[in-house]
């Protein structure tokens, strides 16, 4: 089994094939109407399966690295080439599905700040979007220095974790390109639960003090639907009972 298959697994491939099949059936053969939500769902499912495969692969590497009585080189780089079709199917389906999902999630004409705190208060949490939302909140509500000091500390903690993730990714890249690298140590460092925890802690704090609620209340609302008035002469008269 090559590295790509070990990472993605049969379920990822099936999801990718299903996505391409759906595209062919709707766009090429036009068997039934096209719904982008279906493709987005398949994309997220494929990413989820891929993530499980990665976790399993990392666990195998860590097990191999922590077995002292059987020292053996960690064969992360397989000499044989992966089947190009499998790689193309997975890559194409995930890219298409990811792009569709991104378009669905980003909103069509929402202003940038609204996108930022919609992401921060909803699905995709990034340090950048959290800080953009916080900057908008400070500009509008002036929360005071005590609370700003708290956010500054959380921001620094999350940014430090981000830098550690970049360093670990760099070290991991070096280890992969060198057969003598200490893979286990590097992978262990790269997993970095601290990075996720720091961002989650930051988001929870902003949620707790009501930043996202306040911003949503102040955001320009979409124009409400106003029904046309019904003129009395347009209403047909009720039939008179006999």
């Amino acid at each position, binding site marked *: 089994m090559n590295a*790509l298959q070990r990472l993605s697994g049969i379920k990822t491939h099936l999801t990718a094939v299903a996505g391409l099949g759906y595209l062919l059936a709707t766009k090429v053969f036009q068997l039934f109407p096209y719904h982008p939500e279906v493709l987005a769902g398949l994309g997220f499912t494929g*990413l989820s399966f891929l993530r499980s495969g990665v976790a399993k692969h990392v666990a195998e590497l860590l097990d191999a690295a922590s077995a002292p009585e059987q020292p053996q080189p960690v064969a992360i780089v397989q000499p044989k080439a*992966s089947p190009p079709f499998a790689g193309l199917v997975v890559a194409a389906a995930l890219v298409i599905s990811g792009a569709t999902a991104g378009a669905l999630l980003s909103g069509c004409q929402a202003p940038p700040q609204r996108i930022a705190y919609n992401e921060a208060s909803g699905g995709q949490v990034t340090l*950048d979007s959290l800080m953009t939302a916080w900057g908008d909140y*400070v500009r509008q509500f*002036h929360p005071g220095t005590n609370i700003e000091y708290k956010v500054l500390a959380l921001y620094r903690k999350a940014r430090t974790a981000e830098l550690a*993730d*970049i360093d670990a*990714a760099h070290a991991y890249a070096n280890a992969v390109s060198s057969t003598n690298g200490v893979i286990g140590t590097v992978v262990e460092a790269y997993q970095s639960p601290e990075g996720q925890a720091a961002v989650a802690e930051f988001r929870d704090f902003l949620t707790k003090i009501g930043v996202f609620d306040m911003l949503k209340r102040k955001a320009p609302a979409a124009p409400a639907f106003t029904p046309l008035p019904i003129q009395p002469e347009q209403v047909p008269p009720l039939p008179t009972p006999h």
Partner: protein
Amino acid sequence: MQESALQLALFVIEEGVKLEPKIAAAISAMFSKGIPTAEDWAALRASVASKDYRDYVPDTQLPPSAFGG
């Protein structure tokens, strides 16, 4: 692209989607040009490290001493 590079790119992008999509995009862009050099990684690190609280919060009420100034 070598299989090891593809494997690494998939791993980093998947993790990056969870952690920080912008950093994942930057790493992905680096890999699109080939295996990143030490200078590429240093530039990415510097771009993240150079960001400051005041870049996001220009209306901050914190004194300069809060930022080591």
